């Protein structure tokens, strides 16, 4: 290791003194970034996709775990696997397409051929190849990833075998994934059309922003003004906004409007109360959902919920419903893969409303996300400051954090490790602590 990092110089975590601080180095150091790729993204569970992306026999889709190309392939019998998408021969990425259906995958370089289980089915001119004994002893199949698991259609994998079970890793957040999936008896799917964008800043800017209620009224006033205006005019040619009916972000709202929850392994939720109204596409199912799952769970499904499954999955249910996958490229460059995630079988009208609400808010071509990504880039510039290395952005809510849950999590038997109940102006930042503690746990071999 060319460079040594001391944890206490990166994360100042002293709960007894009421201190939690993060050093700017975490965002700007290329050497630290390389270690993150190896230990955070290639050293533990990461999200890789939805089972519906490879629904039928021999369907596949490709992605990356950290820097490593992978393929999720459903074999002819219907079993899903996650394979390293690299030909063992010369290390060429085997499949280039994002998705498809194939019972055989032929390497474009020397035609080694694999079936949809990853088994090698042909080595071109093997018999005439004068291979020596050592070659036959090697495994020529595509390598499976060390660990692969599914929870209700959400697929996770780890290149490192030494990780907790997926059940343990997800823990209580499985109940939050249930809220996403149980909106329809048929589960969820991705709306066709993937939107991909980059920003010139560290991946942890996106990680935090999804859970950052504090920024909303500051970063997005131009969008909020348009929402206000549309609500007043009730024009028929503009889309109805889910956020219009919600109080959680209105600075003059009173009482509990939401809060945050932190879970083991770095997962967090920030949430806000949203009423069950026709502005939400799920309104058409509101009664059915309540009958199937109870009113409390139904109401939670209508709440604003931004869920992060550390380190790379974010499901944002606020202005619409979005699934984001964070793909770090460099210490100062991040690629975002984004989709509209939706209940299967919803009406065409509800689907259209969901899509319209999505585009204006979530797209990099919309009216909100660009104001976020520009702020990430401005933050990245500011990470150069060394005079005062400690950021002051992880301190709100520290004095409001309690162990365990509260009456709102109790409603759905959800047991977070820590939680904050908030009025509209608290805007907890203490939940970010979960990210950095999980980060430190994954980095423990190289940052001590």
């Amino acid at each position, binding site marked *: 290791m060319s460079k040594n990092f001391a944890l206490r110089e990166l994360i100042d975590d002293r709960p007894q003194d009421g201190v939690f601080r993060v050093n700017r180095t975490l965002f700007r150091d290329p050497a630290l970034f390389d270690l993150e790729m190896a230990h955070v993204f290639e050293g533990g569970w990461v999200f890789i996709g939805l089972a519906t*992306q490879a629904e039928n026999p021999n369907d596949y*889709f490709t992605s990356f775990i950290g820097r490593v190309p992978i393929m999720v392939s459903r074999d002819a019998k219907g079993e899903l696997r996650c394979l390293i998408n690299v030909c063992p021969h010369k290390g060429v990425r085997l499949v280039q*397409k*994002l*998705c*498809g259906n194939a019972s055989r995958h032929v390497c474009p370089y020397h035609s080694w051929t694999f079936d949809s289980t990853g088994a090698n089915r042909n080595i071109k001119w093997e018999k005439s190849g004068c291979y020596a004994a050592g070659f036959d002893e090697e495994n020529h199949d595509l390598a499976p990833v060390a660990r692969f698991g599914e929870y209700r259609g959400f697929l996770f994998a780890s290149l490192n075998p030494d990780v907790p079970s997926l059940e343990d890793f997800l823990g209580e957040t499985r109940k939050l994934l249930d809220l996403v999936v149980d909106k329809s008896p048929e589960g969820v799917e991705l*709306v*066709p*059309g*993937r*939107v*991909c*964008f*980059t*920003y*010139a800043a560290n991946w942890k800017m996106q990680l935090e922003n999804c859970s950052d209620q504090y920024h909303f009224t500051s*970063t997005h*006033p*131009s*969008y909020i*003004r*348009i929402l206000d*205006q*549309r609500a007043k005019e009730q*024009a028929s*040619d*503009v889309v109805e906004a889910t956020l219009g009916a919600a109080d959680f972000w209105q600075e003059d709202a009173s009482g509990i409007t939401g809060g945050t929850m932190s879970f083991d392994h770095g997962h967090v939720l920030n949430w806000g109360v949203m009423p069950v109204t026709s502005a939400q596409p799920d309104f058409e199912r509101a009664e059915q959902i309540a009958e199937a799952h109870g009113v409390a769970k139904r109401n939670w499904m209508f709440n604003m919920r931004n869920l992060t499954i550390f380190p790379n999955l974010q499901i944002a249910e606020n202005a619409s419903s979005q699934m984001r996958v964070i793909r770090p490229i460099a210490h100062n460059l991040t*690629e975002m893969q984004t*989709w*509209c995630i939706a209940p299967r079988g919803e009406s*065409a009208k509800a*689907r*259209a409303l969901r*899509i*319209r609400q*999505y*585009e204006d808010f979530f*797209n*990099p*071509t*919309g*009216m909100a*996300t*660009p*104001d976020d*990504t*520009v*702020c990430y*880039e*401005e933050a990245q510039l500011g990470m150069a400051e060394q005079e005062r290395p400690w950021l002051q952005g992880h301190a709100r809510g520290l004095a409001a954090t309690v162990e365990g849950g509260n009456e709102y999590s109790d409603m759905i038997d959800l047991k977070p490790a820590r939680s904050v109940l908030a009025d509209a102006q608290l805007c907890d930042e203490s939940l970010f602590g979960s990210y950095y503690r999980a980060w430190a746990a994954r980095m423990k071999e190289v940052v001590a």
Partner: protein
Amino acid sequence: MTVLGRAEAAAFLYREALYLDRMDFDLWLDLYTSDCLFWMPAWRDDGKQTDDPDSELSLIFYRGRRNLEDRVQRIRSGFSVASVVMPRVAHMIGNVLAEPVDDRTTRLDSSFIVNVHDVRTHRGHAYFGRYEHELRLENGEWKISRKVIRLMNDVVPTMLDIYGI
């Protein structure tokens, strides 16, 4: 019958491009009918563009000029950090074809490159793709009743607003 010739059609597209290059959004909005469709499809994983905006995602989809007015309002509001230091853009339009649909409607196909200089970061980018315009004669003037922007390089660096396409 009013026929929009190829040269006139091209001039119309150049004028729209000029208004965007000058960020003269009022004149730009004036080119559109009040019920216009403004649509930039997204791309599916199978390598094809989305083609049903009500069941598939678009990068931008609006029915009604009112929505474009909202976009302009946001840009001008002073409350959008992405619009505080405005990028500079230059549209290049070529390969213009015009085909009359009926005596009040003409369809135009063209190619575009929009060179963007991001003044805030000193970064440059070139968006490119194809336009499909439908022009409709309203009170003796040609207006855009439908514009489809088929963006080829759809991995967006940081942000892309209406003046960059």
